[in-house]
């Protein structure tokens, strides 16, 4: 039996800045909390195809697992956790931007 589909988001890097971005229902966000959570496999495949076609704005789109047990999606793997936060040696990247909001 195939493995059950787990919730995912579409993520990529922005072409101009290289920032980590997440696909929302209407576009892209730099904040994982605003990402569109995909719970249906066929739907996820279509959303990924859609993202991959936006070559003028995004680079390297792929599906990443998220944990949906809380109010907002959270990364399940430490790599995605770093992408959503920034490096651990300096407060650069997303953690810096979020601190300045």
């Amino acid at each position, binding site marked *: 039996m195939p493995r059950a589909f787990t919730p995912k988001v579409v993520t990529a890097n922005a072409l*101009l800045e290289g920032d980590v971005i997440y696909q929302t229902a209407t576009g892209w966000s730099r904040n994982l909390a605003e990402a569109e959570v995909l719970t249906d496999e066929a739907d996820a495949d279509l959303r990924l195809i859609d993202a991959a076609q936006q070559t003028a704005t995004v680079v390297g789109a792929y599906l990443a697992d998220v944990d949906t047990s809380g109010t907002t999606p959270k990364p399940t793997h430490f790599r995605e956790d770093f992408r959503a936060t920034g490096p651990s040696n300096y407060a650069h990247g997303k953690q810096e931007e979020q601190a300045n909001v």
Partner: protein
Amino acid sequence: MYNYTDFDTAFIKERNAQFRAQVERRIDGSLTEDEFKPLRLMNGLYLQLHAYMLRVAIPYGTLNSRQMHVLADIADKWDKGYGHFTTRQNIQYNWPQLRDVPDMLDALGEVQMHAIQTSGNTIRNVTADHFAGAAADELADPRPVAELIRQWSTDHPEFQFLPRKFKVAVTGSPNDRAVTKAHDIGLRMVEHDGQIGFEVIVGGGLGRTPMIGKIIRDFLPREDLLPYLEAIVSVYNLLGRRDNKYKARIKITVHENGLDDFKARVEERYALIRPQFTGVDQQMLAGIEADFAAPKFKSAPETEYHDARQHYPAFRAWSDTNLTEHRVPGYAIVTISLKAHGATPGDATSAQMRLMADLAKRYGHDELRISHEQNVILPHVHKSDLPSVYSALKAEGLGTANAGLISDIIACPGMDYCALATARSIPIAQEIATRFDELKLEHDVGPLKIKISGCINACGHHHVGHIGVLGLDRAGVENYQITLGGDGTEDASIGERAGPGFSAEEIIPAIERLVLAYLDLREEPAETFLQTYRRLGLAPFKAALYPEAQANAA
């Protein structure tokens, strides 16, 4: 130092203009990412975990104060005010934006620097002994030959699409500080009947399949170097595997075909192409050598140096660890540690870069070097100037007295930055250094090289660390494997895996147990960790690493 000719300047300018147009076409949608990626990689531009990364070559690790100032300016203007020096004598900027990269490359071009062939399946930045031209044990300065190889390999039409990347290192000293045996080609200057030539080593490399290079020619006359290199790379270009990325490096080509077969093919190719080299390269080399003429060394009393050693314990400690013997009496080679306890190995702020540049200009004949161990070197400082140099360094957080000690750790960027990484390296290095600083043990422990890689590609050289640490992803958790007994010098050896890996929380105590065990096991304080390991083998260290297994077996 080498000075660009008009040809070099025009070449860099044109190449930068081409890349500027390529970036514009990518942004306006004329180029897809698949089309653009090989073009940006040829110019050193990666897309990493959080941002783009620009890798700038520092050929054979040599630069002057003006160049270092521009590296600092670039860090301030287009990045976050710092740069990361790498194990291949490059500097990496972790946060550039795509639109700014052509301007960064133009700024580099203004001071005769570039990012060409710092990525891709080409001949990469040629590295050399960071003490070149200064070391007391040196036969000859390897940098003129390294510059000749840079010119030969840059945009070499035959070698733009090799099966895989290709790294060359050169040393002019019998004590190998350039890790030549872990390079695709390693060149060691040797003397034969009064003539200086090269021992040519081929097929070394770390990564997934670590191998110590094999000697393909024990003495190659100097004038035969370029045709012989061309023959090796040419044979590899056709024979190297393109069906499997993991078997594409020359180490596998040599291993699978055998050294004898590989050598026979190289010699055949060499015989064919040797006549094409009519000596123009040797004329060019003579010109390059004139550029690398030694500075005018001064002679002055060393009183201030000896006084400072006598009266200032901190200066004495620093001069014990961070100075190396210079070939000229009265001079010393200064290693500036970029490994302050708890800091990121290899990182320098723009203020630190400017200070090092100014010190080089004022006290160091305007020369700086980047070492593969991620430190900065002032190769020519008169001993009378050392107290001034030290106090200036100390004020900017650069006075750490730990060169060659346990906190002088090589660490790759790991999963804090790198898209290929499987675990973090930097925090492990930070914690080891902080812990041994707390224990106040590192001077007692003595020479000990810890090298950390955040994935199997081994940019952190863990295979040749006395203690190597490899970060892996084990079922979604960071896990760290220890290897022991590696060595990157002329006696190169690959470290032996000690056993099961440790979690991020367990790895620091594990290394502490290992080092404390060494202190118990060594015959005398002068016996280094590596010597003790070679005398006793893995068993007693394994027992220290895995006390539970020991208890269960008892």
